[in-house]
């Protein structure tokens, strides 16, 4: 249990650090802008209570916001994502229901489940983030193309991380 809490805290610190030092400076063709810190919320244990999800996402969002000079922008996007997480988990139930997997990672849950789950949530986060940032509908298609391309890039980074740096957790 303590191990689980500690590894989640370390993961959060690492992802936020990676985001503010490296990924906030990545710019491909002026549209692609990956936000990998959302992986922290994606990988929280399946039985995390929803108030825990909401408060942790709020806190993470505030930290990222203070480093990008955008109070409330990342916070609102990631809180929305955390709120949607239990709904999406119900929506993409694997055949035979959930067993007692502690962490919904790629190696624990299978590729198909994880990719559907992560893509939907990352899309929700990026969509609300980029549209709140632009805050006007006159740039709808430019913003939408940013959302989709950044979403693909973030997913690619998440999958690379999942394939290379995770082990299947023992039950």
């Amino acid at each position: 249990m303590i191990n689980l809490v500690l590894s989640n805290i370390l993961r959060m610190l690492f992802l936020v650090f990676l985001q503010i030092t490296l990924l906030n400076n990545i710019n491909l063709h002026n549209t692609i802008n990956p936000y990998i810190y959302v992986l922290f919320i994606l990988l929280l244990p399946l039985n995390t209570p929803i108030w825990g999800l909401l408060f942790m996402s709020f806190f993470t969002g505030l930290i990222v916001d203070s480093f990008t000079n955008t109070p409330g922008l990342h916070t609102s996007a990631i809180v929305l994502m955390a709120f949607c997480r239990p709904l999406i988990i119900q929506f993409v139930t694997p055949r035979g229901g959930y067993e007692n997997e502690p962490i919904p990672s790629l190696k624990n849950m299978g590729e198909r489940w994880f990719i559907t789950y992560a893509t939907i949530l990352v899309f929700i986060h990026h969509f609300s983030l980029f549209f709140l940032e632009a805050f006007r509908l006159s740039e709808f298609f430019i913003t939408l193309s940013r959302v989709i391309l950044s979403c693909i890039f973030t997913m690619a980074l998440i999958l690379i991380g999942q394939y290379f740096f995770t082990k299947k957790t023992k039950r």
Partner: protein
Amino acid sequence: MRNLWLFLIKNYALFLFLVLEITSITLLINGNNYQRSTIINSANGVVGNWFSMVSKTEDYLSLSVVNDSLATENERLKNELKSTFYISKIDSGILTDTLTANDTVTLKQYRYITAKVINNSIIKRNNYITLNRGSLNGIKRNMGVVCSNGIVGIVKDVSPHFSTVISLLHKDIKISAQTMSTLDFGSLVWDGINPRRAQLIDIPNHVTIRKGDKVVTTAFSSIFPEGINIGVINNASIETGDNFYSIDVELSTPFEHLEYVYVIDNRMAAEQLKIEEGLRDD
């Protein structure tokens, strides 16, 4: 009452979500407002110190570019020295002495404060810059920021040691600009697509706009002095049925590698704003 509590407890997740979401949206909307002070930005001490630490390590990578830009600027400044001009009048020595003695001291309108960029972005829709100078060096809200090549932005928040700047690459920024040869004025905005191009709008279609003409600031605002370089007209066209030009301006400021900037303190800004306030009542 009991039913209400039961209802709240049953749906606590939804209400907690709404509370947190409304809090962050409020932060976001207040954050776009000029008159505010919040700790969630890089003008606060912790984040500011972090950025100056990161900036110190990055400095080494751009030394040659900075050296070049400083050398060019030195050259330009040296060319403006009085000693580089040839004085044709024999008695001009006496003339200049008596003329300049008290005028320049009392009528100096702009003061430049050097600052170093410690954080900068160009890839967002709304970009901000953090500087390593703050209120202790005389920086205040709404001062203009320029670099040796052109304009950079407007100061947003100030703490004792740091300040944040709204970059020209921001959706809310609108700068009064004019073409250098024909003096047609309009507003400069950024459409969020290319960090090297901005758009000049509100120029009526009956004037002639030449490609390659320089765009500079006007004397209308209390923020920037007149004639500061903005860029060069890259493309000008009139959409069918439109009364205004759509003009692309190639920005002269290299936002990708900003290092040293100057914050402009306009000593007559308060006076100008005060007298212009009277116009609003009419």
